[in-house]
């Protein structure tokens, strides 16, 4: 024991201990990007991941979204084990797309950019799908397209309303034209759903751009958006690089789209459940 203690003393030069200092647990506090206020993470999370000061809506992943929207324990997932077959065998430098698919599902809760399944919202049965921005920017590849179409087909069969929460950067580059064609595939499935007389509520969250915005997100019978969500076809950075003009304040935000007539309403995250259930009641489902 004694020599050990001596060693420790020796190591601690200059009177400083080399033992790791007790620090604040990481991520306990965070700065709100909206009002720059320091927030206690737990308070923010309990407030549905919305800043209590300025109503800034933080991005949330698919499982959290479903937990917020669906009645507790009612979500029954469809095609949970689908994975991309990497049709292009996409590689860049030493990196492989296939490794990305694996690494990204480390936590197992969200291994693809969309979760879809049957759920209840305030006791009303719906087909619910939510996108997962954490997985490769929520990009749409073959798995997202497939899950979406299965959900739509099930909704047609069981005459359920369809609720889709979009949160995506667009089509998945790593799957090339196969990913691009998912835009056509999901839209075609929605055409059938439309003909069958189904109600489709599309919820746009920050961000909804590219191939997702230009396909199923914008085809809702009712389109609602969360406050401040970025929604558009081309991302603002690319537009700025192309036309080299300073973009106007609030460009491509949900309020901008409401003003230009492309969405029906802006709904605060805490009101989403009641707003969706009210719409379902109105449309007689």
């Amino acid at each position: 024991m004694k020599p050990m203690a001596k060693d420790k003393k020796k190591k601690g030069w200059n009177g400083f201990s080399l033992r790791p200092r007790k620090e604040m647990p990481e991520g306990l506090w965070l700065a709100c990007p909206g009002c720059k206020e320091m927030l206690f993470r737990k308070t923010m999370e309990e407030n549905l991941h919305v800043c209590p000061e300025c109503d800034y809506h933080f991005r949330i992943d698919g499982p959290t979204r479903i937990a917020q929207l669906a009645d507790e324990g009612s979500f029954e997932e469809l095609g949970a084990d689908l994975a991309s077959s990497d049709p292009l065998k996409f590689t860049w430098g030493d990196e492989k797309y296939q490794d990305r698919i694996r690494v990204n599902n480390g936590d197992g809760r969200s291994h693809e950019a969309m979760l879809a399944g049957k759920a209840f919202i305030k006791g009303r049965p719906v087909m619910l799908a939510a996108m997962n921005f954490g997985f490769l920017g929520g990009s749409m590849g073959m798995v997202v397209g497939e899950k979406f179409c299965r959900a739509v087909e099930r909704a047609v069969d069981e005459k359920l309303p369809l609720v889709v929460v979009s949160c995506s950067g667009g089509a998945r580059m790593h799957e090339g034209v196969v990913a691009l064609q998912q835009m056509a595939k999901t839209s075609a499935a929605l055409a059938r759903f439309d003909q069958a007389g189904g109600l489709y509520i599309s919820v746009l969250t920050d961000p909804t751009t590219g191939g997702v915005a230009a396909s199923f997100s914008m085809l809702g019978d009712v389109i609602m958006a969360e406050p401040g969500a970025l929604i558009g076809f081309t991302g603002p950075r690319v537009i700025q690089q192309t036309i080299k003009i300073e973009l106007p304040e609030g460009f491509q935000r949900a309020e901008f789209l409401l003003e230009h007539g492309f969405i029906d309403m802006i709904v605060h995250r805490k009101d989403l459940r009641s707003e969706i259930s009210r719409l379902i009641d109105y449309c007689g489902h």
Partner: protein
Amino acid sequence: MKSRQGTSQPLQYLPFEEEVARIDQLIAQQGNEDSLHGKNASKIRQLQVRQTELLQKIYSNLSPWQTVQVARHPRRPILNDYLSLMFKDVHPLHGDRCFGDDKAITTALGQIGRHKVMIVGQNKGRDIKEKIACNFGCPNPEGYRKALLKMKFAEKFGLPIVTLIDTPGAYPGIGAEERGQAQAIAVNLMEMSRLRVPIVCIVIGEGGSGGALGIGVGDRLAMLEFAYYSVISPEGCAAILWHDGTQAPRAADALKLTAKELMQLGVIDAVIPEPLGGAHRNQHDTIYNVEQYIVRTLHQLKRKSIDELLEARYRKLRSIGEKCLNLAEIQPQIPERLSAKVQIEKAVQEAAEAKIEVQ
């Protein structure tokens, strides 16, 4: 050689055609001194044979990036060439009845073979004045809305639709976003999947992402041999992956954007051959090949009933990317999922076990 080039203007050579350009120069020198029937005739013919062999060699294994360069060649036939050479009796129709008339998308009634059709095509423009008017082939939302309006008109009167795709992408601008670029494309995708007339889509040059897809949903999708079709431009892809736009050739390799590769992936239905040395060396043959394909395909499609056609169209779209793998195949240990069904089953099982223990 002149007949192959089609016009008297000098051809612009692509970077990988240096040798071809040198031979052309040699021929020109010989030709200047003496005509084809003079004493240099045999030498000229020798050079021509060598050049043909060279072109065959180059164009039979173009790299994906070289294909992109051919597809963007300034002399490649554009929509206007097809309108004047492939269709008879062309009547352009203008305007989306809503905002304006986008010149990047041309819609016209026309006749091809014996078929009266609605033509919808993206136009890049030839000279600089035309290019500016056409916005360099980048459509705005009103272009897509115009296309849809004319396609619905075609549906009403049972005219098949032929779309010719040639765009770097939908226009990224403030106005385009204000007028709902995303919504315009989305609606086109949905409506084209259920239009009750045959639709043939052909990528004649650049197939740039959503901008191309916006008029590219139909019963058949074909590509010219050296056209490309991609989810993102190679430059854009390189900027994302390497933070460097000059890596575009590597990105083009990875994206699998050539007609041959897409055919192997099962995304497109046919590859239309181009003449020796690419479409820009012989517009007439290229357009003839496209015409043959369209006439033949329309003939096939018209024989089917429209309900059969729609079902086949849906099946075709639905099957792209249908063959997903099981997660277990790429990752042996699947973590527990948050499925209610699984949880309930587990709880029931546990309860059953507990009961047995009690007894």
